[in-house]
C-alpha cells in the first residue's frame, strides 16, 4: 500500500548488500582504539529524568515476512536488523556519530605493514549460554561470514583479503588476523552489525550471542521475543522483556503506537510525523549518509563530455530536491558521498544551481537543447521517481529535454547499463564506497553505475587503503574526492534523514548516523 523507501530495501538481495555493506571508516587507527578500551560500549539515557527499570518494550518493525531470519550474518528485513542488533555484537561497533568503538574486542592493532592485525578480546564477556567468549569464537564467526566460497553480507571484502591459512587464535584472548594484502582500515570491516560474534557451536534454531537481550521465541513474519541478559558485560537493559512485532502496513504501525500497544516504530513515513506528535509521542530524526544519486555513464554520449556532466550538476536545485522529495528531511549534497568520513572534503565549495553556467557549458559541448532519457523505478525507493520528475522541471530551465522512463523492475539486466538513471546507497565511508561504486567490476566495482574508470583516482584510493597514518590517508582521499567533484558521473543532491517514532514515556533513544532508532539499541531504552 505505502511506498516507503526503506520498506523497499528489504525486497532484493542486492539492496541488502548495499545497505549492510562494508561501511568503512578511516577514523580508527590502532592507537585510537587501544587508548579507548574499557567500558565504552553503552551510553546513557536521553531524557532529563532518571530512567526506570522494568516493563516490556514492544517495537513495531517495518516490513518483515516469511523471509525473516535470526541468522546473525545475513539479516534480510528490517525486523531482522533490529533482532541482530540486540542479540549479537561485533568486535567493534559504530557509535552514534559513526565512529568506531571497541565492543567485544578490547583493542585491535595493525603491524606496520598493515598486513597482520592483533585483536585482543575483552575479558569477562559471556555468551547467553554462560560460555566465555574466546578468540576461537571470533575466528569461527569471521570464517562463517567471510567464507571465501560464499561470503555473507559483512564478509564480501574480508573474504578476499584474509589469509585463513596463517590466521589463527594465538591464545584464548588473542586473535591474529593475517591479510594477503596491506589493508589499513580492516577494523572498519569488523564493525558491521552483520559481523556479530557467535560461539563455535552456534545453532540458529537456538541462537546465542553476547547482546543485552536473550532469545526467547521467534515466528517469521509475526513476532519475536527476548528477555534481558543479566550477565551482559555492559550496562544491563532497563526493560525486562523485548518484543519485536512485524508490521506490513505503516498505518497499522502508527495506529498501534497511538493506541499505546507498541512503544517504538522505525522508518516513520514523513506524512505520519504530525500524527505521532499530535498523540503525545516523539519523533527521532537522525542524519544519515544515505543518498539517491542521478548516475551518468561517463563512457557514452552525451555524458562522455565532462562539460555535459558539469552542466547537469549545475542544473539541479538541491534544496528543492530535499524539500519536495524528502519533505525537507535531508541535508545538502555536494556530488560527494561518505559525508561522515573524517576525510570528507568539506572544504570544496557547495555546488548550487547555476542555469547560465550550465547553458554555457552545454553550448561549448555543442549540446544545446539536448534530449536525454532518465531511467527510474519504484524499486529504487519512492524518493527516486519523485526526484526524477522534479529534475525534468529543473532541466527545462537550461533547455534540456529530459524524458523519464519508469522501469518495472528497475533492477533487471539493464541495470548498470542505463546511460542516465538513478540508484540508492546507504551510509558508508569513502574507501569502501569508492571501490564498490567507481572501480571497474574486476577490481571490486560491483555497482559502478557510471562506468567511471579513472586510473589516477583509483591509485589514490588504493594508496589510502594501505596507509596507516590518518593524516596522510586523508590527504590522499581529498585528492581522490577532488577528481570526482570535478569530473565524476554522479549527481549527489542530498542525504536523507532517518525518522523514527516513539510513544510518550519512552526514554533513552539517541539519533544514530548509521542505523534507524539509535541502532536499535533497546538496552538503552526505558518505558
Amino acid at each position, binding site marked *: *500500500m505505502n511506498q516507503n523507501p526503506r520498506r523497499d530495501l528489504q*525486497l*532484493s*538481495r*542486492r539492496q541488502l*548488500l548495499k545497505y549492510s555493506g562494508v561501511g568503512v571508516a578511516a577514523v580508527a587507527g590502532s592507537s585510537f582504539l587501544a587508548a579507548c578500551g574499557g567500558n565504552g560500549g553503552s551510553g546513557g539515557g536521553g531524557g532529563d529524568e532518571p530512567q526506570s527499570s522494568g516493563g516490556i518494550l*514492544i517495537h513495531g518493525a517495518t516490513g518483515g*515476512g*516469511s*523471509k*525473516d*531470519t535470526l541468522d546473525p550474518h545475513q539479516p534480510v528485513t528490517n525486523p531482522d536488523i533490529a533482532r541482530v542488533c540486540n542479540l549479537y555484537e561485533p568486535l567493534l561497533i559504530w557509535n552514534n556519530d559513526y565512529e568506531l568503538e571497541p565492543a567485544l574486542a578490547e583493542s585491535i592493532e595493525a603491524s606496520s605493514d598493515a598486513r597482520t592485525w592483533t585483536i585482543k578480546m575483552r575479558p569477562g564477556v559471556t555468551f547467553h549460554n554462560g560460555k566465555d567468549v574466546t578468540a576461537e569464537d571470533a575466528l569461527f564467526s569471521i570464517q562463517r561470514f567471510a567464507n571465501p566460497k*560464499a561470503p555473507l553480507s559483512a564478509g564480501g571484502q574480508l573474504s578476499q583479503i584474509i589469509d585463513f591459512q596463517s590466521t589463527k587464535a594465538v591464545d584464548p584472548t588473542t586473535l591474529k588476523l593475517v591479510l594477503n594484502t596491506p589493508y589499513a582500515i580492516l577494523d572498519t570491516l569488523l564493525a558491521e552489525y552483520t559481523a556479530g560474534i557467535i560461539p563455535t557451536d552456534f545453532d540458529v534454531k537456538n541462537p546465542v550471542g553476547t547482546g543485552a537481550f536473550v532469545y*526467547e*521465541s*521467534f*515466528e*517469521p*513474519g*509475526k*513476532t*519475536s*521475543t527476548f528477555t534481558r541478559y543479566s550477565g551482559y558485560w555492559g550496562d544491563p537493559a532497563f526493560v525486562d522483556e523485548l*518484543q519485536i*512485532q*512485524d*508490521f*506490513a*502496513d505503516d*498505518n*497499522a*504501525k502508527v*495506529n*498501534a503506537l*497511538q*493506541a*499505546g*500497544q*507498541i512503544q517504538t516504530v522505525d522508518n516513520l513515513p514523513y506524512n505520519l510525523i504530525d500524527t505521532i506528535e499530535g*498523540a503525545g509521542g516523539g519523533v527521532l530524526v537522525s542524519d544519515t549518509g544515505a543518498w539517491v544519486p542521478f548516475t551518468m555513464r561517463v563512457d557514452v554520449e552525451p555524458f562522455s563530455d565532462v562539460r555535459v556532466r558539469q552542466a547537469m550538476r549545475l542544473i539541479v536545485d538541491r534544496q528543492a530536491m530535499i524539500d519536495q522529495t524528502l519533505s525537507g528531511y535531508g541535508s545538502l549534497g555536494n556530488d560527494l558521498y561518505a559525508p561522515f568520513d573524517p576525510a570528507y572534503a568539506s572544504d570544496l565549495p557547495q555546488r548550487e544551481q547555476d542555469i547560465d553556467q550550465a547553458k554555457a557549458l552545454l553550448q561549448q559541448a555543442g549540446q544545446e537543447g539536448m534530449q536525454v532519457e532518465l531511467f527510474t523505478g519504484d524499486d529504487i525507493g519512492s524518493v527516486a521517481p519523485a526526484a526524477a520528475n522534479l529534475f525534468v522541471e529543473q532541466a527545462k530551465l537550461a533547455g534540456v529535454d529530459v524524458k523519464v522512463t519508469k522501469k518495472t*523492475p528497475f*533492477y*533487471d*539486466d539493464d*541495470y*548498470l547499463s542505463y546511460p542516465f538513471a538513478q540508484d540508492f546507497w546507504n551510509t558508508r565511508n569513502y574507501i569502501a564506497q569508492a571501490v564498490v561504486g567507481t572501480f571497474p567490476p574486476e577490481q571490486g566495482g*560491483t555497482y559502478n553505475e557510471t562506468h567511471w574508470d579513472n586510473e589516477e583516482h583509483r591509485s589514490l584510493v588504493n594508496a589510502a587503503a594501505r596507509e596507516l597514518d590518518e593524516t596522510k590517508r586523508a590527504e590522499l582521499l581529498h585528492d581522490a574526492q577532488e577528481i570526482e567533484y570535478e569530473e565524476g558521473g554522479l549527481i549527489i543532491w542530498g542525504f536523507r534523514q532517518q525518522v523514527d517514532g516513539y510513544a510518550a514515556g519512552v526514554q533513552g533513544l539517541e539519533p544514530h548516523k548509521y542505523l534507524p532508532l539509535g541502532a536499535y539499541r533497546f538496552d538503552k531504552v526505558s518505558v
Partner: protein
Amino acid sequence: MTQVAILPDPLKEVAPPRGRSGGAAWAIWLLRRLGLAVLTLWLVSVLVFVATAALGDPVRAILGRDYDSNPGRVAQLEEQLNADDGLISRYLSWLGGLLTGDPGTSLANQQPVWGQISANVVNTLVLVLLAAAVMIPLAFGIAMISAHYRRRRPDTVIQTILLALAGVPEFVTGILLVALFSTSVFNIFPAVTIATPGGRPWDNLDGMVLPVATLVLAVTPHVSRIVRASLLEVLDSDYVELARLKGIPESVVMRKHALLNAIVPGIQVIALQLAWLAGGVVLVETLFSYPGIGRQLVDSVRNHDVPMVQALTIIIAAVYIVVNLVADLLSVLLTPRARTAISS
C-alpha cells in the same frame, strides 16, 4: 452484488433418478456434487500451476540483479524448483505432494510450506467464522425489521444506512473504526493484533472486536438487502395472504411462513460472502496486522515464493468450493420441491 441472479437451480441441475430408494438417490446426488467439487479443484490446480509457471523464470525474479553474480544460488533454487523438468512432470510431482499433504518448501526461507501456513489458515478461518456468527443473525434481524416496516420510515432509514455501508470499502470502515475506538476519540479497543509468541490472535479477545466489526459491517448490508428482498416477495404471495386471513398473528407469519421460505437466497449470498472473505480479507488483515492467509499471500507474491503462492491459492479455492457445496446442500434440504426431486 446481486448474487441472486446466479443462484443455481437445484431442480435443473439434478435430474430425478428413477426407480431407486430415497437414500441411494441422496448418496448418488452427494457423490456427484463431491465429484464435481473435486473436478473443479483439480481444474483450479492446473490453472494455478500454469499461471505461476507463466510468470516467467521465478529464479530470475527472486534474485534480481544478483542472478548473474550468484550462480551457486541460481543452481540451488533451480534444483528446488526442478526447473530442468518439463511443465507436466513438475505439475505431477507438485500435485502428488499436495495430495500427500506436502505442498513443498518455501523459496523465501527454506521452511516447509505447510508449517508456515497452517496457523494462518486457522487464524483467517476463525476471523471469518466469528464475523459470520455475528453477521448472520444481525443480517436476518435487520431484514425482518425492515420487511416488517416495509416502505415506512424505519425501513427507509435502514435501507439508506445499509446502502451507504455497502458503498464504503471495508478498509475505510476499518480506518474509521480504529480512529473512533482506539486512537483518536476513544481508547477502548486495541488498534492492531499484537501476536504473543506461540499464541493465537484471539487469546486477547479485545483485539478481535475491531477486525470482526469491520468484516461484519462490510458483509451485512449485502446479505440483509437480499434477505429483505426475498422476504418481501414471500410476504406478497398468496399463501401468506391466506395465513393472515386465517388470523395467524403477524409475528408467526413472519417467522414460520415467510422467513423459512426466504432463507434459501440468504444462504446462497452468505456462502458467496464467506467465500469472498476467505481470500479477500487481506485489506482487513493488513490494517489490523492480523496474521492471516491474505497477508501471507501478498507477502509470498512479493517474494516470488511460488510454492507458497500455489498452496495458498489452492486453499482459498478449496474454501470457495466447500462453502458453496455446503450452501447448495442446505438450499436443497430447505427447499421441499428440490428434496422431493432428488429422493423420488
